[in-house]
């Protein structure tokens, strides 16, 4: 167990290191001068030079990268004017070029929105997706199954922004059931939080539900075809008990584990949904950062997303191993 954790941790760190290096390298190839961005409009050459010096942009790219790593591990100090030294605690991801905010702080501020979005979608796909999948597996050949096939196909055929757009069009513009969604933090007003996230949740949840319904269905069918199910059938266990007691666990274990992976991916992957519904989350931050070549923000977000994915992967393996004792933690 400890070995497993250590090994996963090592691999995860390597992946994150590689990720940050790739992003760093990529961005130094990109056109655009960070100093000019940080300095703002109508900076004269002296000002730009000062800013460049202050940001340490005169050093070689590897030096800058090493300093960045040092910041992540041990924190960094910045001059804040008026004799003020700004200490940026580890993990320090630096300051945004664009509005010189601490990236760590910025990310912490954006995380709740993304998390809210992903959480709602998770609940939807676990309840609706997995539920429908189980139902259609148990009632094979029934109407549910047929409907499910159609819906899942339609879902895989719809780009997320089309569904989102159509939902906005129908629900907000024509039917006027809901106002235009505006993200409201949970802490401000839980009810508004939920109402405003409803459409994004439905949009994202729909796709994931379709995927999970399909997955659960095939996983359940596979489990139902396993030998041990046959054993219990041969001992007079009823069909319902077969499913609830013997099939569900095996069928749903991989689904739940995969949910963890998808949840992690969604922390960074809901770019389009965030963009479409104007949710100030990580994905939107990232796109905005990429557009203006705001390196610290981009590296920060990519690392956060990478971390989320890596953690999710590990959680998935753990969940799976806990659910299925046959699987060794390798």
């Amino acid at each position, binding site marked *: 167990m400890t070995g497993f954790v250590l090994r996963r941790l090592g691999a995860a760190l390597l992946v994150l290191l590689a990720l940050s290096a790739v992003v760093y390298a990529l961005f130094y190839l*990109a*056109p*655009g*001068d960070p100093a*000019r*961005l*940080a*300095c*703002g*409009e*109508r*900076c*004269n*050459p*002296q*000002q*730009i030079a*000062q*800013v460049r*010096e*202050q940001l340490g942009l005169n050093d070689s790219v590897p030096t800058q990268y090493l300093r960045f790593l040092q910041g992540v591990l041990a924190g960094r100090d910045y*001059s*804040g*004017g*008026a*004799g*003020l030294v*700004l200490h940026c605690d580890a993990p320090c991801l630096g300051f945004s070029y*664009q*509005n*010189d*905010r601490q990236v760590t702080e910025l990310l912490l*501020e954006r995380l709740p929105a993304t998390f809210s979005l992903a959480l709602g979608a998770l609940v939807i796909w676990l309840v609706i997706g997995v539920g429908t999948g189980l139902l259609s597996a148990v009632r094979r050949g029934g109407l549910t199954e047929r409907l499910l096939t159609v819906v899942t196909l339609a879902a895989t055929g719809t780009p997320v922004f089309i569904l989102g757009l159509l939902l906005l069009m129908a629900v*907000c513009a024509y039917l006027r059931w809901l*106002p*235009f*969604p*505006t993200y409201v933090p949970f802490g401000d007003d839980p009810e508004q939080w939920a109402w405003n996230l409803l459409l994004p949740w439905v949009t994202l949840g729909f796709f994931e539900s379709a995927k999970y319904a399909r997955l659960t269905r095939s996983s359940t069918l596979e489990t139902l075809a396993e030998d041990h199910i046959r054993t219990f059938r041969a001992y007079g266990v009823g069909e319902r008990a077969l499913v609830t007691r013997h099939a569900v666990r095996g069928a749903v274990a991989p689904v739940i584990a995969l949910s963890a992976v998808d949840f992690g991916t969604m922390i960074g992957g809901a770019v389009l949904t965030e963009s479409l519904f*104007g949710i*100030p989350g990580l994905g939107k931050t990232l796109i*905005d950062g990429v*557009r*203006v*070549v705001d390196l610290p923000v981009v590296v920060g977000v990519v690392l956060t997303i990478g971390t989320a994915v890596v953690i999710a992967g590990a959680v998935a393996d753990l969940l799976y191993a806990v659910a299925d004792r046959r699987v060794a933690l390798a």
Partner: protein
Amino acid sequence: MRQSQISRRVAAVAVSLVLAGGAAACGPEDAADKASAGGGPGASGSAPQKGGTLTVLNNEPQSDFDPARLYTSGGGNVPSLVFRTLTTRNREDGPAGAKVVPDLATDLGRPNADATEWTYTLKDGLKYEDGSPITTADIKYGIERSFAAELSGGAPYLRDWLVGGETYEGPYKDGGKGLDSIVVPDAKTIVFKLRKPEGEFPFLATQTQFAPVPKAKDTGVKYEEHPVSSGPYKVAKNTGDGETLLLERNENWDPKTDEERKAYPDRIDVRSGLDAAVINQRLSTSSGPDAAAVTTDTNLGPAELAQIGDNKELASRVGTGHFGYVNYLAFNPKVAPFDNPKVRQAIAYAVNRTSVVNAAGGSALAEPATTFLPEREAFGYTPYDPFPAGKTGNPAKAKELLKEAGFADGLTITLTHSNAQNRQTSPEIATAVQQALAAAGITVKLEGLETNAFNERRWDAKNTPGFFLSRWGADWPSGGPFLAPIFDGRQIVTNGSNYNHAQLNDPAVNAEIDEIAKLTDLAAAGKRWGALDKKIGEQALDVPLFHPVYKRLVGKGVKNVVISDWTGVLDISQVAVK
């Protein structure tokens, strides 16, 4: 401000600019406006009362809320509620609003004979939010802070104009010596010594850098979290670097010392980071607290205008304003074939301004332009059209010119534009130009760049593209900040941001700019700026395309909307919600 752009900071600049504005002329199409007090939209009837909370729904956050860092035209809209400056905008509708008036100072400043020295005296009874008195030393300190590299941002004028400004590195690095060209003989008086005559100094003194900052309260980059207020409101909460900003009354602000700011609402709640669509949707629904809401940075889009259509109620809540701005096709005459004036003229003839205006959102959002200066009196607007293209272009004439230039078989050129979705330097405008030139036998290849790369290219004097979309906005309503950075040969910057795209260095033009700068009679100066614009325009160094128009919704319960020709948006300091 000048080019607005995409970066958030820059956009923020644009926002503040916009915010800064005052009342603008209501568009003639807004019949419903007549009812409202200021001529802008808004609920009519009863007189404005104090009280209530005004909500500001914005796209761009009010980031870097530090007077040293803000880049505003006339002190900004929201910033001007907290920071008082030596002078400020006249808060009136239309052309009257483009005038500069005293604020902290008793007058617009007293120049010496050649306008190289400006002296100001403070009014009596001026206090900060903590009740301590405002002194000229604090104004000097505030300006000095803006030179610090840590507090980047702001306009370049102080650096360019003040004696010693080009080398000064701010109060954190000067060993306490300060900047010698700002003299404070006593707590009420302040003198600025300039390198050359600047008749428009009173306009500069409207910018937030002229707001007082008590040295004892300076916390460097953290000052923005709670800057010390000299205006009618103080910062109660500032989260997410200006994403939400809550302003409350500053009880130590004395309305008797301030003729400009009305300050009706008790609180101003600025919420930003919202999508344009959301802002406009909320304003048009105008339910609950949104009835007392305005936006200072978000236009109605073309689709939304199409939708408002015949809805009188909605149309009555649309405020129309003009901010001094021009969108144009820029040439770099050092690059062939744009070194040939005939080619440039041919392009000027070929341009279809109807397509371009449609691409910019239609006639409600853009007015076709043939002059560089905006069509407002304050800028010294003088109509001219040296290469009449008519409404939809004159490809025949263009072909003729091309033939004369030796391109009888047509011509292939590249148009550089940005990928920003701003309907200004964006792909829509570029393709409209492309199509129009095609009719004249000019094949246009498009080169779209991401915003930063685009700005760097067009501001890079050594590598300026031959033909690109550009735009320019005014730092204050005058021809000076409009023409000088673009056409003054001494403002060609070779290793920084260069705005003189054509790299025009005409001694006659330079001399005229210097001459006008000496005038302290702004009306007289205006006339001469207009004449200069016309003279330069005949050289076809650029093709003006359109001047944008601002169309913005306000909530149902908003009163006393004032839109000046300075900012083109409603002035928050005038708005009432009761």
